[in-house]
């Protein structure tokens, strides 16, 4: 069975739902109107016939059961415009005469009240009549009185009325469809504005989207603008990084090439050392720049499992330094997610733990916790620690990543740089056992976004 495709636009969906619902409700109202109209008119006719029967009965009783005296010709018909039939054991009377074939069979029945008679075979009589039959005794004589109304003509006028109702309904429906259309279009106008803003953005006429519009769209527009900000920021950063990189790498390459191409010059020990040191420069530059460009920084839609990553790293470092113990203390559940890029978090944890592992004498402890609006990472070791003055400059700003000497400071400088991008802070101190304790605090992103400091620097 083929499934009909749902319209993908909001307007299409609204119209698809509202229009058939409007039509169906209108049709239902029209149908109910018809049924009620028919029932009402029937009840009305029946009650009138009943009154006339009662009137006739009254007259017959007054005349003491003599039907003849009622033979006033067209009197009743003129007064009531109804056909009637009266029967006593001695006499039967039907007016008008042409209805007799329809009414006479009713004398014999013993029904009281209204009867519908459909019979199109009698000429000059209507095909559908409603008759009201009543029998009563006067002085021991059974009298039957029937009053009948031509329903055909009533039906016709009723149908005319019903048709008019249909016409009015259709008109109303057209108005309803129109107002729905206008309502939906008006309500969706901000979307069109947004769409045109996006088009203009794409064609480069504007660089950010105005955050006006209904409340429902404001967060969306805000997020979009933030995304644009971070995109632009990143592009700038990677361009800068690449430019710097080519500057700093091409010179040593040129130097090494010069030496190697100079066939007249013997490759002595000193020259070899020079080449090696130039190549080391290139490697150092590459490493630092590549690492920086790999950091994701704060952006939407990222997450990592801190406990899982921490366990893996602790286990790995425990394998590499088998004489030391790497411990985890945390109240976080295994499946708890932090809104930090996985590679960034790995880099922070890895560098902190690796550093601690190098300096510790037998134990490294990692603490992961959350307090209200912050994610907290604490790494402590039982190594020799760092002397007071050096503690202050450890991995501090000003010392750029590619200016740090490899070894002790490099890992911490990376951590500083990443944490800074998330609007967090790193503090170094000495633990109770004298070893270095590094505390990283990173705010949860909604706090950063609201203060708009979420991109670095």
């Amino acid at each position, binding site marked *: 069975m083929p499934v009909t495709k749902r319209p993908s636009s909001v307007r299409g969906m609204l119209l698809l739902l509202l229009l058939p619902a409007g039509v169906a409700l209108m049709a239902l109202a029209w149908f109910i109107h018809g049924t009620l109209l028919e029932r009402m008119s029937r009840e009305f006719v029946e009650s009138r016939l009943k009154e006339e029967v009662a009137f006739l009965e009254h007259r017959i009783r007054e005349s003491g059961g003599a039907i003849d005296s009622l033979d006033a010709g067209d009197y009743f018909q003129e007064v009531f415009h109804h056909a009637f039939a009266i029967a006593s054991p001695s006499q039967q009377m039907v007016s008008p005469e042409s209805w007799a074939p329809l009414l006479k069979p009713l004398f014999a029945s013993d029904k009281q009240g209204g009867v519908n008679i459909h019979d199109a075979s009698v000429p000059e009589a209507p095909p559908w009549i409603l008759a009201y039959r009543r029998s009563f005794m006067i002085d021991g004589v059974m009298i039957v009185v029937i009053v009948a109304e031509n329903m055909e003509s009533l039906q016709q006028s009723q149908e005319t009325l019903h048709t008019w109702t249909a016409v009015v309904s259709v008109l109303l429906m057209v108005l309803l469809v129109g107002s729905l259309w206008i309502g939906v279009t008006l309500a969706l106008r901000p979307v069109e504005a947004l769409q045109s803003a996006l088009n203009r953005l794409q064609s480069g006429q504007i660089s950010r989207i105005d955050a006006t519009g209904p409340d429902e769209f404001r967060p969306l527009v805000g997020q979009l603008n933030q995304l644009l900000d971070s995109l632009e920021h990143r592009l700038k950063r990677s361009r800068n990084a690449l430019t710097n990189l080519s500057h700093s790498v091409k010179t040593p390459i040129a130097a090494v090439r010069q030496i190697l191409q100079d066939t007249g010059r013997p490759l002595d020990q000193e020259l070899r050392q020079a080449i090696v040191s130039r*190549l080391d420069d290139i*490697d150092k530059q590459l*490493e630092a720049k590549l690492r920086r460009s*790999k950091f994701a920084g704060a952006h939407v839609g990222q997450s990592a499992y801190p406990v899982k990553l921490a*366990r*893996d*790293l*602790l*286990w*790995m470092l*425990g*394998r*590499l330094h*088998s004489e*030391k*113990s*790497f*411990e*985890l*203390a945390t109240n976080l559940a*295994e499946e708890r997610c932090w809104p930090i890029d*996985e*590679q960034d978090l*790995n*880099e922070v*944890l*890895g560098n902190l733990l690796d550093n601690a592992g190098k300096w510790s004498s*037998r*134990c490294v*402890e990692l603490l992961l916790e959350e307090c209200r609006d912050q994610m907290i990472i604490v790494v*402590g*070791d*039982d190594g020799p620690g760092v002397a007071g003055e050096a503690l202050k400059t450890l991995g501090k700003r000003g010392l750029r990543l590619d200016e740090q000497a490899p070894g002790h400071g490099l890992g911490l400088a990376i951590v500083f740089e990443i944490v800074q991008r998330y609007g967090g802070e790193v503090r170094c101190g000495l*633990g*109770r*056992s004298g*070893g270095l304790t590094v505390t990283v605090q990173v705010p949860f992103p909604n706090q950063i976004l609201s203060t708009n400091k979420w991109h670095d620097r």
Partner: protein
Amino acid sequence: MRLLLVEDDRLLADGLSSQLEKLGFSVDIASTAHDGIVLGEQESYRACILDLGLPDGSGLDVLRRWRGSNIGFPVLILTARGDWQEKVNGLKAGADDYLTKPFQAEELIARLHAIIRRSEGRMVDIVKAGYFELDQSRQTLKANDGQEHSLTGTEFRLLRCLMGRPGHVFSKEQLMEQLYNLNDNPSENVIEAYIRRLRKLVGTDTIKTRRGQGYMFDARD
């Protein structure tokens, strides 16, 4: 000492092998993952240096193949990427250490000697209790569903203690001796936290509490 070097860069491989041969190693060079797998399976080596980026596959797959067929020589992996996840994956696949390219030959040789020394006298060393297997050399626990869990140092020592004598009740004081942490006077709560973590791995019923006495590993099936 025979050594296998799996590296696709000819210049690097030749340079390394000549330096290693000066130190008394006899080096076989494989330049593809396929050759590496075959050589590792057929010959018996003392150690291996394995590059992760090979032309016909990942070095990690080579390593997994070897470890899958119980080839246990120590492996030093070489990687150009240097992100932590790759290092973790390398060690999980069964490597003993890693080195990031470029490296100095002295560093490589020092690491190589270290992993050879560590692997000396190392055998498959597994403590079994019930459905659980504790791999002492890899510090991992294999549960009954075949899943491998990595353990921190204290978790491992506690579990080794408990699983070493299933059915024996260990007091908190005894277990506290297995504890290493930065706090000089660890409280008994620390032991309770570790027991909670271990119970998550092996099931609540497997480590039983004997009120006032301590804990017991219940290995009944």
